Every structure is written in C-alpha cells, then in structure tokens.
C-alpha cells in the first residue's frame, strides 16, 4: 500500500496529490509566502525546536499519557483499547499543540495582532491563551450559532483578554468564521498573523498545522512500544478539518501495518443529506484556499452542514485527508449524532472520561471496528478534547434543565 503513497508531501507548490494549493485573493499571496519561508527556515532549527519543546512540556503538560481503557476493552471483547489523552493538555484539547508553535512564528515575523477562527471554541481558547502570554492583541471569529452552543468557551476566550467577533453571515458556523477571518486578514495583512486552527486553508497552513500536531503521533510510537512492544494495529480519530487525526496519523503513514481510521460527523445520517462528512459524501472542490473534498451542490455552491458538534460542523476537510482517502492509506467512516451521544455516555460511565462531542465520534465506531479484531491486537483512540464545554448542550439535548 505504501507504494501508492508519496512521501514528503506537500510538494513545493503545496499539493498533496491533486489536493491543496493556494487559492486566495491576491492580497494574501505575499503573507503566505513570507509565512512559508519563515517556517521552512526555522523548521529544522534546534533552538526553534527547543523553544517549542519547552512550552509543550512546561506550559501544555506534554507528553500526554497513553491510557489502557480496561472496561471498554472488556465490553467489546476485541482488541485492547488504548486512549491517547490529548484531553489532559492545558486548555483541554489538542489545539494548543498548534497554537504554541504558530505564536512563535508570529513573534519571529514581528506581527503584533493575532486572529483566528473557531468552531467549538477550543482553537479560540488555545489561541487566546498563547496570545495572552505574549501580550498580543487577539481577535477570534466564531459563527453566531456556535457562540450560542459553546458559550462557556466564549467566556473563557474573553477572560483571556481576547475579543470574540460573532459572525452571522451565511450559515453562522465555522465556515463563515473562516470567511470572516480571511477578510480581516486581507484588510490587516501588514501587522496581523492568522493562526488557522486546522489542517485546512491555503499552503503552507495544512503542512504547518500538521507538523505542530504530529508530536501526538511521535509520542505514541514510543508509548506503544513501551506498553505493548509494537505499533498499534489501528488508530482512530475524529475528522472535521482533521488536525487531531493528521497529528496522530502522520508519523504512522509509512508504517503499513497500522490501519488509520478517521471518523466524520454523520449528523442525521449520510442519506438524510444533513451531515458534515465530505469524505463520505462530497466531491473535490475549492474552499478557503485549498482543493479538497467538499460538500457542494451541482453549481459548486457550498452546502450547509449539520452536526451535533460545532467543531466538526464544516463542509470541507484538510487536503491531506483527501489524498490519504484517494490513495487508500486511511479510511473514513461516518457516525450519526445518535451514535455519538451513546458513545459519549459510554466513555463517561465506563472510563470516567467525559469527552468532547467531537471526540465522541471516534468512539462511536468501536462496535464496528472491534468486531473484526481480536485480543492480540491493540487499537489507539485519540481523545482529542474533554467535554466540559459541551455539558450544557448535552443537558439541553437530553431535556435536562441545569438552572
């Protein structure tokens, strides 16, 4: 299988196979090439790596543990189930791995103003957090609908000294927050650094965000070896834009024995059309600067999406995932909101871990995946974030009044 897979992607133009690229308004082209050259010049630099490693250990709390989920394993009677605990990071999700790295790039480039988009609010919190440490002016764009359903994170962002801009154009969710952040960047490009939160957007972002998240997979190689003496047989992660999934997949891509499984938001079911699963039910198109699978109608208009989780409620996906799908190196499943709620409760009750609704998507494929595997095998799920932010939405979905 690896023979199909080209290594060292993206290429110089920013493509993973036919996916990726730089499809942006002209005003941003210079900013993208400056970012690319800054990143490439420091990428291999030991001092740069040291600075990141220091923040990752003393500020983020890395490495995140690999935890054996004994009761989940017993329940499914298949492979041993291990959890990579990104939910234990400072700010509660994998998103901080990327912002800690990008803020250093922003500083090197002399930018005084930081902007970011956010869906579930985790990337907004992670961005506001690193901006606060450097005392930088920080602006977070968030769909008006997401501001409602993730109000706790909105307040956290404000406490960290950043400004939240609710976006009520289009569908008032993550894609519209990205549109608005790009418009801000076009306007303030001279002094502003845009910290994109997923492996989406124009080149070089999908590469940079992947590289900063790949610490998760690199730690896992060592932890797997220490705990069960070999690589995992399968790795499972949820996919919206796909940054937590690429982060844990990437160091294993050339290890053919490791099955890579991404899980998209199936919303009310793929057949209903109300979902956010472009890899399962989209076709290649161009949105937010990159070519990738996209939910779109016959005229190329981007369709509105539906998901119980704000962080996966996005019509596109990172270009590298589109490539991994086409070459058959990763497979992408979809689960419904209903299956997600079941998995959310199961993980909370069996293992004492309340996951983010995004993360719960990965757990919802356990019945299917485990039924085909046996106890000699090991699978790892990426617990990309914790569920504190979702408690009030879950209560309201289940008709419980917390007042």
């Amino acid at each position: 299988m690896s023979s199909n897979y080209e290594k060292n992607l993206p290429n110089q133009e920013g493509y993973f196979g036919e996916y990726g690229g730089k499809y942006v308004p002209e005003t941003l082209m210079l900013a993208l090439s400056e970012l690319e050259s800054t990143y490439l010049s420091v990428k291999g630099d030991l001092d740069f790596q040291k600075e990141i490693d220091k923040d990752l250990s003393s500020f983020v709390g890395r490495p995140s543990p690999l935890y054996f989920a004994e009761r989940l394993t017993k329940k499914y009677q298949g492979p041993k189930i291990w959890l990579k605990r990104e939910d234990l990071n400072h700010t509660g999700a994998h998103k901080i791995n990327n912002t800690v790295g990008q803020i250093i790039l922003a500083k090197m480039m002399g930018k005084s103003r930081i902007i970011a988009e956010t869906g579930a609010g985790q990337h907004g919190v992670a961005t506001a957090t690193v901006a606060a440490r450097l005392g930088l002016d920080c602006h977070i764009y968030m769909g008006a609908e997401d501001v409602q359903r993730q109000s706790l994170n909105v307040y956290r962002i404000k406490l960290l000294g950043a400004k939240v801009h609710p976006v009520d154009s289009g569908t008032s969710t993550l894609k519209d927050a990205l549109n608005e952040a790009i418009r801000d960047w076009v306007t303030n490009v001279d002094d502003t650094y845009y910290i994109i939160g997923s492996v989406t957007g124009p080149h070089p972002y999908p590469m940079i965000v992947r590289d900063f998240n790949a610490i998760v997979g690199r730690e896992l190689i060592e932890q797997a070896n220490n705990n069960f003496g070999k690589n995992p047989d399968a790795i499972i992660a949820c996919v919206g834009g796909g940054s937590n999934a690429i982060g844990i997949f990437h160091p294993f891509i050339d290890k053919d024995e490791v099955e890579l499984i991404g899980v998209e938001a199936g919303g009310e079911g793929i057949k209903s059309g109300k979902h956010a699963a472009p890899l399962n039910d989209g076709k290649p198109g161009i949105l937010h600067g990159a070519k990738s699978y996209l939910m779109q109608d016959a005229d190329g208009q981007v369709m509105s999406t539906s998901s119980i989780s704000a962080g996966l409620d996005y019509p596109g996906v990172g270009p590298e995932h589109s490539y991994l799908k086409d070459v058959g190196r990763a497979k992408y499943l979809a689960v419904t909101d209903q299956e997600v709620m079941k998995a959310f409760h199961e993980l909370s009750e069996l293992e004492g871990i309340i996951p983010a609704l995004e993360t719960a998507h990965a757990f919802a494929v356990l019945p299917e995946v485990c039924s085909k595997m046996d106890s000699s095998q090991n699978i790892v799920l990426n617990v990309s974030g914790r569920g504190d932010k979702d408690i009030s939405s879950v209560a309201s979905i289940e008709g419980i009044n917390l007042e």
Partner: protein
Amino acid sequence: MNRLTKVLSQNKENNIKSLVAYLVAGDPCEESTLELLNGFALSGVDVIEVGVPFSDPIAEGPIIQSAHDRSLKNGTNLKKILKIIKSFRKSNSHTPIVLMGYINGFLANQSEFSNFSQHGVDGVLIVDVPGEYSLSDIGFQNDSILSVSLISPTTSKERVSDICNASSGFIYYITLRGVTGANKINVNEIHENLLTIKQSTDLPVLAGFGIKTKEDATEISKLADGVIIGSQVVEMIKNSASNKDFKKIYNYLKEIKHSINL
C-alpha cells in the same frame, strides 16, 4: 479582435479613461440584470463586470456579500447568467463583458466554458486563483476568452511581471488592503504601484476596490487607464430594488465617466 481589447485600446489611443462597472447577476432579479446591463452601456460604462454569485465570497465586503446571497436565493447560476448575457447581446454587440467569480463556481460548471464566447462573454476574472496561472492552467481551454488578473499593494515586484505575462485582458489593480467596498485608499501608494505595473506590461491597467466618489475616481484615473466601481453601484441597486427605478445609478455612472475625463 476581442471586444475587450478593442474597447480598452481604442480608449487608450484616444486618451479616454475607461469606466468599468460591476453588478452581481441576478440581484435583485434576472430581468433587472438585463435592464441594468443595457442601462450601464447607455451611461458611458465601457466594460461591465458581471459578478457570478458564490456562497463564500471571501474577497467581498458586506455590500457585495449580501448581493451574492440575494442572487443565490433567486436561484441564479452560471447557465442562467450566460442566458442573460446572450439576451443582452441582441441589443448590444459592443460593450465587453467580464465574468468575475470564484473558482469553485466555475469548475463545477466546466462544461459551460466552451459556450462563454458564443454567449457574448469576453473575459474572466477569478478572484481566488493566483494571477500567474493562466486560464488553461486551471482547465479553462478557450482562446477567445481573455484573462483579467488582480495585482494588489502587497504583490511583490517579481510576481508583478509573472502576473502581467499570464494576463490577456487587463490588469485590475486593487487599490487597498481589504475587501471590496472598504475605505482606506492611499493615493501615493497607488501611484507608485501603478508605475511599477506599467513598466511590466502594455496591457491596460485599471484600478478598483473602494472607489466611491467622483473625487476618488478622478484622482485614481490620473495614472490608471480607468477605474472600476463595484460596491457603490451594488448598494445603489439594492436601494432601487423595490421600485426598479435605476435612473439614479445611471446618472451616477455618467457623472463618474465625465469626471475621470475632464
């Protein structure tokens, strides 16, 4: 000769500054678009830029964004836009038309590319494709359609010449860092950059994004070969939508054309 090249080069020879006006096709409705195209042409507009609506127009400010939304709600698509232009050509065979839109909307309708010129389209401007790519680079094989490219205040000197080499219609100089309709024109910077571009190309160089008043237009047209007016026109179309009385817009365009050629 392509209609676009003909009009712009004749104007240049005769020392006439060109006026380009923009509208979003299907806003407020298909019939109005046809009426507006004719009205623009009769008001001294030299080239009409017809916006193809897209769900996520990232380069547009709020005025043009909402025009895209209104048009999409009316069910406008590329096929219908080509039909409108074909009808326009029944009464007007001289005013060039440039389609301006986003790449995903064009690629989804790739089968229509070959019909562009027979429907009366003269050029294409794709906002989110870097200017050094020619139309054929992105799968657009139609030699009779010219490519209009954007150059901005942040475009590096090396890229200015690459972009000019890949363009065939005219160069659209973006006068500011920002979205359409913004308000931050810096005349000195514009003049300096226009000079740089003119050293790289013989193509006409027109300027737009944020030009609203006669004064802006006059100032910019001193160095550019003409000006492009978008948001201001689109806002006026919105305000006239209820009674479909577009006279004010036509008067405004006549005044602009007059003031850039004083």
